[in-house]
């Protein structure tokens, strides 16, 4: 029986994919750096939002959990990093980022416990309720969070004691890109790991996963915690680079916008999340600078066009198109 079968099994998708991804991210960031040297603040914001969108993709794209409340996790990270700096004098950026990740993970645990109690529309509504609760708590705890005035007074040491976070935002940008690369590689490892496979299984058929003896709920909850850490890093990056945290970072609006970006790019793939964020925010920036008064209509039209002509999202549809072109090669 013990035939040497493994040699006949061609292995697919070697780490090459990850390497290409890293190369693309680095190339894009270098191009961004030189093409828009005066726009680094915006680029940093895009990176921070990208982390939030990646984090949504982990639960929505990989586990099939619909959420309109993910900003709760992002905001927890931002406030976590901001509060330790403004109130406890912990101003070392790496520590702040780490604290942001932990705060995000905790928020992920809490919202996961709540949100995973239902499915479909009720689940969506639970996620909305959660983000509103977080928002209310932050508004009430104004002695800690600054309430609606925003948390100001966040200071940050030079990164590694060498690089100041300055007006031009170079340090913040490069730090953001490094964080993004670390997160990207970690997530690539995660989604290709047995756990990642299990999560995809949960998305496709939770009953089957349970019949294999795995706990669907615990898979999703763990993913929520991981997703919280990722969003928390994004929030912390935002707090470090802008030195202020507002209630908007815990808002339903941000949650919805981030979900739109994800669907725009295509769910269930890390690239889709990143492509969606860049396209949406870049488009929004261009259109709103060109016409600050009526850009919303144009963004709305873009969304409709995408659904009509690229129903799997920009990246998803492009990938599907390419693989169809290549035929049954894979």
């Amino acid at each position, binding site marked *: 029986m013990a035939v040497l079968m493994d040699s006949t099994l061609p292995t697919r998708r070697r780490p090459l994919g990850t390497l290409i991804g890293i190369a693309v991210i680095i190339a894009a960031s270098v191009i961004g750096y030189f093409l828009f040297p005066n726009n680094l603040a915006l680029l940093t914001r895009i990176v921070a939002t990208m982390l939030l969108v990646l984090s949504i993709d982990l639960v*929505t794209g990989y586990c099939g959990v*619909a959420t309109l409340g993910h900003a709760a996790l992002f905001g927890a990270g931002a406030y976590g990093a901001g509060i330790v700096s403004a109130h406890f004098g912990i101003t070392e950026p790496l520590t702040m980022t780490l604290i942001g990740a932990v705060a995000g993970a905790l928020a992920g645990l809490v919202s996961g416990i*709540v949100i995973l*109690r*239902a*499915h*479909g*529309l*009720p689940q*969506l*509504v*639970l996620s*909305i*309720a*959660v983000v*509103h*609760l977080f928002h*209310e*708590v932050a508004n*009430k705890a104004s002695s800690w969070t600054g309430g609606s005035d925003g948390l100001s007074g966040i200071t940050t040491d030079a990164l590694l004691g060498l690089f100041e976070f300055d007006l031009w935002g170079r340090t913040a940008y490069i730090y953001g890109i490094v964080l993004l690369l670390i997160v990207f590689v970690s997530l690539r490892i995660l989604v290709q790991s047995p756990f990642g496979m299990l999560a995809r299984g949960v998305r496709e058929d939770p009953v089957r996963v349970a019949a294999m003896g795995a706990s669907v709920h615990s898979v999703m909850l763990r993913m929520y915690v991981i997703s919280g850490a990722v969003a928390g890093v994004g929030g912390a990056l935002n707090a470090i680079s802008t030195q202020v945290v507002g209630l908007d970072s815990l808002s*339903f609006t941000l949650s*919805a916008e981030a*979900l*739109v970006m994800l*669907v*725009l790019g295509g*769910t269930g793939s890390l690239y889709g999340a990143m492509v969606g964020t860049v396209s949406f925010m870049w488009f929004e920036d261009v259109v709103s600078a060109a016409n600050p008064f*009526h850009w*919303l*209509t*144009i*963004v*709305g*039209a*873009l*969304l*409709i066009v*995408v*659904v*009509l002509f690229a*129903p799997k999202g920009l990246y998803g549809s492009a990938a599907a198109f390419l693989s169809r072109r290549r035929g049954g090669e894979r």
Partner: protein
Amino acid sequence: MQTVLSIAIDALAYGMVLFVISIGLSVTMGLMRVVNLAHGAFAMIGGYLASYATRDLGLGYAPAILIAVVATAIIAVPIERLLYRRIYGAPELTQVLMTIGITFCVIGLANYAFGPTLKTIPLPETLSGSIDLGFRAIATHRIFAIVCGLIVAGGLWFLIERTAFGIRLRAAVDNAPMAAALGVRTQLVYAVSFAVAVGLAAFGGIVGAELLPVEPYYALRYMVTFLVAVSIGGAGSIPGALIACLLLGAIDTTGRYLAPEYGEFFFYLAVIVIVTLFPRGLAGRFK
């Protein structure tokens, strides 16, 4: 005791306004299974048209309502044919993306066409005063809204449960291919239901305008409230939506009376508790 009665009557009125607007959404989401985030946008169009008809064209309240509701439904028909038809049966997230896009467009266009200010729909003499209930005064239009809510609930129930159209609709929803094989023109049924749902949205937008004022951001501002109401009621269920709206109205009103500073907090906490206890809605018909 007076206070309790007073809160109860406020809760009833608010719940009914919520019901008139949300029931259309419940129909689209429950029967046609479309996550229609643009529902508020249609309510808003109704409000704008009614405001335009009364203030600029000088029409009376009743004809303005009629015209606005019909016109909104007419506007909705091409939108259904061109856009919604593509997303029936599509994944929920795709529907979210499309309907948010529609909402953005409607907001932008309303802002462009009517300007960013508040629009009011002047009430006729008979509805604009207050009625003294003995223990307190209540605005007449609130009584009007309560009556409208009851009529809508009854009418819809009759339409869906007791008419030939209702039978076709339920058949098309339960099993579209089978219904088609039996000679039901499902596309037409969908189009009509959509128009009815949109018409109800417009009606709710107008009747509720005293509470939820008409302005360009209406469509997004109240979207969550409508979604919550539908979800708690269980999409597609008329009694469910009615109970849910009254319940939410009660929670909201009581919360605002007893602890306004935590109003929002308790409201969403209650939502979490209810959804956890009834994950399929109070009377979920599907799914």
